[in-house]
């Protein structure tokens, strides 16, 4: 945290190695988790399939809570993947923090605003695309003047605030969590000598537990808001 970032230039684009490695690791963990749970799919579920189905029911429940009717089934997969990805990404930094020299290579990818804003950008883009597909370009544009023409600037402004708040809320929570975790760790290895470990350990322990909780809640909130934004675009009259 607060360190210079390891970057690589490729095809004229700059890549932050720390972010990309963390995202990759998150993807691999999520994939392995889902892959191992879905090995024996049967009509009568057992073990892993039960867990997987419970998770699917959970995210489907979030989606169906805001998107009404048959539209909900189109976004189940997105919500499921999003939830698992953000959940794992949030927890990743609590367990792994690889630092080589002055560069950090592995941390929570969601502790970086670029990652969270990309996720929120995907959600907003999906919401707008779904709105155009469902109501046509005319209906989509018309929703900006609802309920009156006067609301047009507010409605346009709202698109940007939705996008920003969605991404920055997640980033802020996870970034703050990691920051504090680092500070507590710094406390232990600081000037207090061996005694500092004694009081730093329970604080670190407590804060890690709390961060797990925050990470879970933020994953849930992100998916919930995603389905709310999609439902606003798909059925604007509600």
């Amino acid at each position, binding site marked *: *945290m*607060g*360190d210079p*970032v390891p*970057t690589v*230039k*490729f095809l*004229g*684009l*700059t*890549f*932050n190695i720390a*972010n*990309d490695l963390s*995202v*990759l690791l998150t*993807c691999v963990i*999520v*994939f392995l988790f*889902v*892959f191992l*749970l*879905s090995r024996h*799919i*049967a*009509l009568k*579920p057992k073990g892993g*399939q039960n867990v*997987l*189905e419970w998770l*699917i029911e959970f995210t489907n429940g979030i989606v169906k809570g805001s998107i009404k009717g048959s539209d909900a089934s189109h976004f*189940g*997969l*997105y919500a*499921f*993947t999003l939830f*698992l*990805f953000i959940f794992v990404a949030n927890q990743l930094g609590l367990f792994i923090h690889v630092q080589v020299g002055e560069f950090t290579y592995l941390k929570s*990818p969601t502790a*970086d*605003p*670029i*990652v969270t*804003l*990309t*996720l929120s*950008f*995907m959600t907003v883009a999906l919401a707008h695309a779904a709105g155009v597909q469902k109501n046509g370009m005319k209906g989509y544009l018309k929703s900006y003047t609802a309920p009156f023409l006067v609301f047009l600037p507010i409605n346009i402004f709202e698109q940007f605030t939705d996008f920003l708040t969605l991404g920055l809320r997640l980033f802020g929570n996870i970034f703050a969590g990691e920051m504090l975790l680092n500070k507590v760790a710094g406390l232990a290895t600081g000037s207090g000598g061996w005694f500092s470990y004694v009081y730093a350990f329970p604080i670190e322990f407590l804060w890690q537990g709390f961060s797990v909780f925050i990470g879970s809640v933020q994953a849930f909130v992100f998916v919930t808001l995603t389905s709310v934004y999609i439902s606003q675009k798909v059925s604007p009259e509600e």
Partner: protein
Amino acid sequence: MLSHLIIGASGLYLGDMLFVAISFIVLMAVIAKVAWNPVSKMMAERADKIANDIDSAQKSRQEAAELAEKRQEALSHSRAEASDIVADAKQSGEKQRTTIVAKAQTEATQYKQNARKDIEQERQDALKNVQSDVADISIQIATKIIKKQLDPEGQQALINSYIEGLGKHES
């Protein structure tokens, strides 16, 4: 720490954004193939199967009730039939009994009559035989006992008159 956002705004975050978006989309595609589609399909299948099972259970219960009703009906029907059959059998048995008894009675009477006739006949025959035998024997005895005291004609007449009296007395 966020300095890279400001300084490298032109290049830095585009690469990361692309990377995040592409990894996420790839992850979503892989999950869809590996888990989401088969599990969702299985869940839909299960829901269908449960609905079907409920339907078929209801149907078979209805069928069972129908069958039970039919059986009850058949049972009462057969009971009535059985009592009919028994009544019929009783009636015909009674009829047969009366005819058999009547026939036996007439036959018995006939036999009795025939027997009586036969007996009468036998008696007549026996009587006739006895009549002649007795006459002959008497004559012989009489001849032996009272040789020549009476002439045979007078003796015969006497015996004949006696036997006639005997036959009259008998009948």
